[in-house]
């Protein structure tokens, strides 16, 4: 007779215990971006809502940036780094296909022997990570999970491409997710639409660049109108579904924290969602730019630290981007 194996037992629920973020020191104005593209401060503000953004220093790596945010989140969580059982790093800008940024980060922050892997879901990566961490905590494969969204997009953006150069920036945000007696992370609504792979992609693969060369190292290429249409139409439906699955209404929200893709997308989503006027909306893109996987935790940290939203309030988070991948869930703010 075959022996019966034991099944892991996890916590009844999971919650975000803490958040930390890191915005690189160097502030880059629209005027500076316009030194390399044919554009103006006014045009960039109108099209994106961005006034300035942060660029990492040339010698600052993705893992350096991630570490700065992760250490703040761990310090605020009340647990020791060696209690972390899994490190998830959402990023598309770590310049090594292997080893993972997560393995290096786990070692650096002292998450001894933690399992570690990277998530490649672009701007949806942080919300993917929160959902996966929740499942780990509830499923019993990790008691505490460090989830980091980090990007150094300036390494992968063509500063002379007027459709992307003004949008993307660098930064990191991190949360520690652990057990909870009460529900604190709602059901995730997620997916990926590979039919629209070309909406946000690279100009060519690294191996094509190696073999064929070309004028430029591979950089991000985006079909702005296609992404805008998809984000405004489809993501509103996904956001509504996340609210419905969490069994709350928009009126119950203490914050709406969408991926900081573009202020115009945020504005259009707020209109389509008929979000009540009393719900604060993350608009961190104005001074941080679009930091892809990092944008939601950076915005969350800022809204909490400024007192704009209360600890323990409900926030609707939604990430969406290349893939086209998306994920949304309602969370209790740490």
């Amino acid at each position: 007779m075959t022996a019966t194996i034991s099944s892991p037992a996890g916590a009844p629920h999971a919650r975000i215990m803490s958040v930390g973020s890191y915005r690189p020191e160097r502030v880059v104005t629209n005027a500076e971006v316009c030194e390399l593209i044919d554009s103006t401060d006014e045009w960039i503000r109108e099209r994106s809502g961005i006034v300035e953004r942060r660029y990492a220093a040339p010698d600052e790596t993705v893992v350096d940036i991630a570490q700065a945010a992760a250490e703040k989140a761990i310090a605020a969580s009340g647990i020791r780094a060696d209690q972390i059982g899994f490190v998830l790093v959402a990023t598309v800008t770590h310049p090594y296909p292997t080893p993972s940024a997560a393995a290096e980060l786990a070692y650096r922050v002292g998450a001894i022997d933690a399992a570690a892997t990277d998530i490649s879901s672009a701007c949806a990566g942080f919300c993917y990570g929160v959902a996966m961490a929740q499942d780990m905590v509830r499923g019993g494969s990790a008691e505490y999970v460090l989830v980091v969204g980090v990007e150094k997009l300036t390494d992968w953006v063509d500063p002379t491409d007027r459709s992307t150069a003004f949008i993307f920036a660098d930064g990191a945000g991190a949360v520690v997710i652990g057990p909870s007696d009460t529900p604190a992370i709602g059901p995730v609504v997620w997916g990926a639409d590979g039919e629209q792979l070309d909406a946000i992609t690279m100009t060519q693969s690294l191996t094509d660049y190696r073999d064929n060369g070309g004028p430029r190292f591979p950089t991000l290429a985006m079909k702005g109108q296609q992404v805008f249409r998809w984000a405004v139409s489809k993501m509103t439906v996904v956001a509504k579904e996340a609210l419905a699955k969490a069994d709350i209404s928009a009126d119950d929200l203490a914050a709406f924290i969408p991926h900081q893709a573009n202020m115009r997308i945020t504005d259009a989503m707020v209109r389509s969602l008929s979000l009540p006027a009393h719900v604060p909306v993350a608009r961190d893109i104005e001074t941080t730019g679009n930091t892809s996987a990092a944008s939601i935790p950076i915005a969350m940290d800022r809204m909490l630290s400024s007192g704009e939203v209360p600890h323990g309030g409900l926030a609707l988070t939604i990430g969406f981007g290349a893939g086209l991948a998306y994920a949304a869930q309602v969370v209790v703010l740490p």
Partner: protein
Amino acid sequence: MSQEILDGLAVIVNEVAGVPVEDVQPDKAFIDDLDIDSLSMVEVVMAAEDKWGVKIPDSEVKNLRTVGDAVAYIQTATA
């Protein structure tokens, strides 16, 4: 040229971009005359799709230079 579609489009353009309804005339170009940028144009297109139950693919949007082009496209699509 359908006056009904023109009027409906004028209301949409007004709601999306704040352009006065009376300025939305067939000979006006969305970008050059009405100062509708590419993202607002997407919102106009999406609202038009909802209102008239038509499909206006991204590949077609760039051909809709003037208000008249859009009215004609919607007219044909709903015929």
